[in-house]
């Protein structure tokens, strides 16, 4: 989403060097996460650290913040050499960090969480007032008395940012901050960050999203395989040129041609309502949706708006009391078990790869057995036919380019992207009539993500119905024929992808679609509680 704001030219951003890294390396027993990294961050500069998953971005930030220590290399802070011993030390220097996986305590209140990170013993009442002050100044509204578990992901991030700001940081590290935000919330975050930079705070912005970096950052350092592969001024680059630096080759694109969906309904949600099992879950309320043969339908939404519950209901993990609300390939399947639903022709790629999609300690062949046993004839007279399981796993590995140590390799030994390719392959090679997948490319590098998307599109071209639930709008717009939004457990109308835009869907993600129920005078909710 282009945001009109002229990024500073390097000469106007050239304040004094605040942080300098020289030759930083970090070796873990099996991998070298960082190798000879050099970096300069100036006062008031927003510098992007760009790289794929596993490129060493997070390790580098942990070194700067004192969570881990480098194996070698030197670090200078405002002209003086320092060895950051701990996060507390980093904070005392003026370095603040907002983590990708939030480091908040769910059972504590906002003000308690902030108090834990501050030195000394601030009185909670006075601190609550300071939180309100800071939150108003930077446009980060949050109620200091609330418990974290009752906050949305966006609100949690605000708490993290406020927690950093209260320490008057001179360097703020943001680790993939937008992965959980709506486009509108991203824009607000960027306004806050720019204001901070204008006040002289330096910002290290870690991301793999090229558009964001181009709109926000003054400068960028690109990492690949733990090494610096280039520096650039994002505003003067194209996404393609930055992607080349990041992945070392051209950004792959999916081929997605418009085509007419079949008339057969493979998945129908007919007034699906379901109360969440989890006390902080989201109740599903009166969902209607048809997915036809030969089309890909996407469901967008900020996480925690009912996606988990919807997936559990569709997959059969949470069977319903009634049959009719979930219809799979024409059969009323609301009360069927996951196995029975698979036999109707449904395949399922869950969000969590380890633990749901695959058993971490079992081999790939055994994992292939788990969902493909009946479909691929791996069971005869109650006995397993391991030869067939191995052969099928071999096919998944070959056809989906899974880099691994063979069919006997344990699932947990594979990298995230490779395991995801294996799981998607296992489901697609069963030639399903309906594929349901959640976050198919979450945490997967750009190359593997494009590969997986292309395979999903190919499957649809062969006449399969596909339902994709994802938080990545770019992904949904790339592969989907039709898109709906889930917000607060309700489903928006479904729109053809080419008749809508990321901006429109972003507004819908707040629950504001035409015909949505609103209480007059209620404040405009931008996020919903998230468990």
């Amino acid at each position, binding site marked *: 989403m282009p945001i009109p704001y002229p990024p500073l030219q390097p000469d106007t951003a050239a304040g004094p060097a605040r942080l300098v890294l020289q030759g930083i390396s970090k070796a873990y027993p099996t991998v070298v996460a960082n190798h000879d990294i050099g970096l300069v961050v100036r006062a008031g500069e927003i510098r992007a650290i760009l790289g794929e998953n596993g490129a060493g971005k997070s390790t580098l930030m942990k070194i700067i913040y004192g969570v881990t220590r480098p194996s070698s290399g030197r670090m200078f802070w405002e002209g003086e050499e320092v060895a950051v011993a701990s996060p507390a030390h980093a904070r005392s220097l003026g370095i603040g960090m907002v983590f990708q996986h939030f480091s908040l*305590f769910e059972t504590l209140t906002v003000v308690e969480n902030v108090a834990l990170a501050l030195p000394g013993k601030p009185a909670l009442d006075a601190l609550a007032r300071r939180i309100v002050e800071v939150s108003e100044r930077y446009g980060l509204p949050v109620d200091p008395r609330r418990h974290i578990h009752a906050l949305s992901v966006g609100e949690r991030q605000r708490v993290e940012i406020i927690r950093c700001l209260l320490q008057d940081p001179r360097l703020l590290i943001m680790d993939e901050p937008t992965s959980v935000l709506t486009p509108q919330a991203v824009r607000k975050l960027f306004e806050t960050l720019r204001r901070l930079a204008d006040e002289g705070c330096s910002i290290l912005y870690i991301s793999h999203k090229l558009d964001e970096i181009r709109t926000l950052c003054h400068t960028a350092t690109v990492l690949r395989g733990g090494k610096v592969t280039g520096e650039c001024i994002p505003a003067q680059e194209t996404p393609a040129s930055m992607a080349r630096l990041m992945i070392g080759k051209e950004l792959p694109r999916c081929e997605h041609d418009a085509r007419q969906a079949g008339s057969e309904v493979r998945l129908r949600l007919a007034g699906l309502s379901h109360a969440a099992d989890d006390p902080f879950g989201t109740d599903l309320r009166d969902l209607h949706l048809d997915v036809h043969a030969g089309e890909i339908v996407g469901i967008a939404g900020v996480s925690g708006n009912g996606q988990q519950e919807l997936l559990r209901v569709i997959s059969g993990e949470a069977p319903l009391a009634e049959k009719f609300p979930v219809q799979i390939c024409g059969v009323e399947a609301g009360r069927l078990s996951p196995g029975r639903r698979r036999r109707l022709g449904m395949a399922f790629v869950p969000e969590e790869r380890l633990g749901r999609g695959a058993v971490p300690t079992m081999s790939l062949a055994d994992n292939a057995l788990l969902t493909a046993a009946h479909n691929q004839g791996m069971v005869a007279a109650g006995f397993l036919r391991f030869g067939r399981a191995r052969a099928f796993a071999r096919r998944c590995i070959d056809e989906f380019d899974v880099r691994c140590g063979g069919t006997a390799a344990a699932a947990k030994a594979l990298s995230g992207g490779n395991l995801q390719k294996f799981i998607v392959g296992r489901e697609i090679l069963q030639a399903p009539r309906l594929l349901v997948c959640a976050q198919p490319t979450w945490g997967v590098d750009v190359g593997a993500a494009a590969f997986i998307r292309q395979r999903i599109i190919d499957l649809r071209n062969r006449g399969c119905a596909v339902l994709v639930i994802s938080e990545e709008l770019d992904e949904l717009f790339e592969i989907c024929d039709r898109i709906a939004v889930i917000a607060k457990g309700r489903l928006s109308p479904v729109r053809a992808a080419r008749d809508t835009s990321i901006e429109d869907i972003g507004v819908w993600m707040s629950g504001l679609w035409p015909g949505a129920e609103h209480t007059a005078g209620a404040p405009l909710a931008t996020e919903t509680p998230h468990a």
Partner: protein
Amino acid sequence: MDASLFTSMLFATVVAGTPLIIVALGLLVNEKAGVLNLGAEGMMAMGAVAAFAVTHESGNPWLGVAAGMGAGMAMAALFGLLVLTLMANQVASGLALAIFGVGLAAFVGKPYEAVALQAVPPIRIPFIADLPLIGEALYNQQALVYFSWALFWGLLWFLHRSRAGLVLRAVGESPASAHAIGYPVIRIRYLAVLFGGAMAGIGGAFLSVFYTPMWAEGMVAGRGWIALALVVFATWRPLRVMVGAYLFGGVMVTQLFIQGSGLQIDFPSQLLSSLPYWATIVVLVAISRNGNTIRLNSPVSLGKPYRPEA
């Protein structure tokens, strides 16, 4: 029921509940830091025998209580070494500690089996001990009874008003986050484990020096396990631990009274004896059904080992 009977039953209830309160509140701190120590029974047994031996040799019950506390802490330190430094499984280590402590206490206590101690006189609090009905029962009690109340109030303040308590809760919820913002997770957990051991030792000392001034093998009689269960059923809230402990004590005293009174009732005595256990569980489960309360109070990382990233 006449007045003196009520007073004496209330007195007995408070005495029976006191060791449970002390031990359970110690375990509560222990568990709030995210460490599950199932060895309470063993720590109590060691506390009881150490307290008895030292009291017997020195003639001073307070030296005995200090020795009981020390023995409990020594056991807890052993447990801490296993699960915090060596990252052993907490459940297995705790069970081993319980068995080891009970056995070692029986071994150490052999020479003391036939001796008795002088009963320690109660401490009478002037004026309020003269209150009708409850005065004699509540304010003419052993010092450790007053200690258990002070412990309760102190713990309430510590957990919800002090910064140290906040840090403790944070460590129990998410040690990784606590480490990331710079708290010494392992040291805090050690302190919590040692506190739990100290309280278990004092609870044991109360049994062998004050409650029944004698030592017998197996005299802890499952109270360590009850205390552990109390903490869970009370959803880690000190007030409910108090309620549960006194409820247990009260039902225990009542059923003993009924069994001893010669009342002609058609009810198997075994069922009566089991009454305190299931009555406590039923009541605590009934008052703690709210999922929200459980989510807010249970330490999320309970029982999970944590090794800080180097």
